[in-house]
């Protein structure tokens, strides 16, 4: 019963070949769209997805149906846009690439249904420029979908028409932030926009715009095809559905697995990833990408649910775990992370533009044996000053999450460098 247990990855094959339209249709593909177009009103689709409990899979976990319901639908002549955020660039995260490369129709069907739910006439796939294979396969899949009447003028002979444009980016982490992404789509520097107004009301070229993550949209066809009750039954925890979880680092079998929401982290690391490589011990992990707080082996029994991981002091983020082993220096790991964030800061607001390079300088000095114990207070101060509410967008608050938790859990490692200098 792969189809029913693993709706997102049922077409994914070990040989990395991709599911053609015929493959996709043979496992129920485009049935959700047929049902949507023939039986449901846009508001009904929103309600189904809301009732199913689907939450955004890009990291923030906002309710997808709720997001859609905030788009003004009163004036149907108004232009509205849907954007699929395929700008996967969170270090340590490789889940959307799998979905894009190996089952492109799943995303396309999800997008058509989502666009119908918000009555968008045009949709964009914002694909990161480095994903060349995905680009090629999406182009092919879009042509196939058009030729079968799933896309274009009069979708399945209905009144609804939709054009999907594939846009490839030119590389910058900040493009994943939805308002920065909209600026990038408009051909500008990808700096975030002030909110409000929210994109749902005033987004791309000032028109109501919904931005959804790839994996989020991939859930949609199955909810429409198999129903709310089935979808809710997939999960083991509070949040609903399945999710792509993964692990990288010095584990025996790094990879991705579609598992029920609410799966314990221990199961992901020890069973699916096969535990640590011989000779290495688990020191800690980032549960959902570079911008999430470290957790420790004592947190292995935490389950992958938004609330549960938050309660443990981190975020589920993208759900793809980065494992820290006992022979990797956590201070150097944090330096690598902060270098990434400092480089990828768009430079729009001062705390982020100036604060992140400062964390890099302090960390480099500490590692070079030039640190002082006061530097740890300075770093801790920066984690507060770059925290939520002080910056334009979520980049800096995310950037300081691994730093603040490293200072808490691995303080002795920082102090050892500083003591080395004294000696």
């Amino acid at each position, binding site marked *: 019963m792969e189809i029913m247990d693993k709706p997102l990855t049922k077409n994914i094959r070990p040989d990395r070949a991709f599911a053609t339209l015929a493959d996709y249709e043979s496992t129920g593909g485009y049935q959700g769209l047929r049902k949507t177009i023939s039986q449901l009103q846009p508001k009904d689709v929103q309600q189904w997805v809301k009732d199913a409990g689907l939450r955004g899979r890009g990291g923030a976990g906002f309710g997808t149906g709720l997001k859609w319901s905030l788009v003004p639908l009163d004036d149907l002549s108004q232009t509205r846009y849907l954007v699929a955020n395929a700008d996967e660039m969170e270090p*340590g*995260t490789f889940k959307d690439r799998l979905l894009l490369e190996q089952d492109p129709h799943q995303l396309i069907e999800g997008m058509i249904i989502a666009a119908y739910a918000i009555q968008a006439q045009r949709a964009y796939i914002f694909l990161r420029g*480095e994903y060349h294979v995905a680009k090629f396969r999406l182009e092919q899949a879009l042509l196939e979908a058009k030729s079968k009447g799933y896309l274009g003028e009069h979708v399945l002979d209905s009144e609804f028409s939709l054009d999907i*444009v594939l846009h490839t980016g030119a*590389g910058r982490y900040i493009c994943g932030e939805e308002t920065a992404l909209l600026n990038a789509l408009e*051909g*500008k520097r*990808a700096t975030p926009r002030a909110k409000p107004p929210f994109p749902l009301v005033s987004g791309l070229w000032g028109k109501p715009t919904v931005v959804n993550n790839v994996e989020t949209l991939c859930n949609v066809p199955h909810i429409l095809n198999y129903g709310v009750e089935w979808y809710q039954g997939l999960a083991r925890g509070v949040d609903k559905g399945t999710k792509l979880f*993964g692990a990288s680092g010095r584990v025996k079998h790094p990879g991705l697995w579609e598992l029920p929401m609410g799966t314990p982290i221990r199961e992901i690391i020890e069973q699916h990833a096969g535990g640590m490589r011989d000779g290495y011990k688990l020191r800690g992990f980032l549960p959902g990408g*570079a911008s999430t707080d470290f957790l420790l082996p004592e947190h292995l029994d935490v389950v992958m649910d938004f609330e549960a991981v938050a309660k443990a002091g981190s975020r589920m983020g993208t759900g793809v775990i980065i494992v820290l082993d006992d022979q990797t220096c956590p201070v150097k790991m944090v330096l690598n992370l902060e270098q990434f964030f400092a480089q990828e800061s768009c430079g729009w607001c001062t705390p982020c533009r100036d604060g992140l390079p400062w964390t890099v300088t302090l960390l480099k000095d500490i590692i070079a044996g030039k640190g002082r114990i006061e530097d740890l207070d300075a770093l801790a101060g920066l984690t507060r000053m770059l925290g939520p509410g002080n910056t334009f967008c979520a980049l800096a608050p995310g950037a300081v999450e691994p730093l603040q938790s490293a200072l808490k859990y691995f303080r002795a490692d920082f102090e050892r460098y500083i003591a080395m200098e004294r000696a």
Partner: protein
Amino acid sequence: MNEPIFEGLSLAEIREINAEMSHYENKTAVSIEALKIVQKYRRWVSDQCLIAVAELLDISPAQLEGVATFYNLIYRQPVGKTVIHYCNSVTCWMLGSDQVGESLCRHLNVELGEMSADGEYTVLPIVCLGACDHAPVVMVGDQLKFDITEDAVNEILGR
């Protein structure tokens, strides 16, 4: 080569850039695609090309330069025929990306960002390529290469 019709851009480039315009609400939106189209033909974006593209899109060269310099994959100086991007984000770093970068540069006798003497290669670091289960990874032109070892570096460079 295509026949240049006015200073800076070839006819083929202009056609491709114009074709992109139907997908967007205005010309500005084509900025990134236009720069990528220029790069497809010339590998990098010279001042002359940048000015020509800005003219074609009715924006100021300064605005387009702001866009060109913002993105990692737009090159404002000459690069080799093949750009090798090695991922230096966290998982690849943990599994040896520094050595991969050093090894590539040593074999080619270049610094990061520099073109090899034969004009074949430029080596640049890049952020997470989304293949962390096969770290360390590099992207050679548009090809992803997984689980990079010292031997793999030799193979990539055909030695």
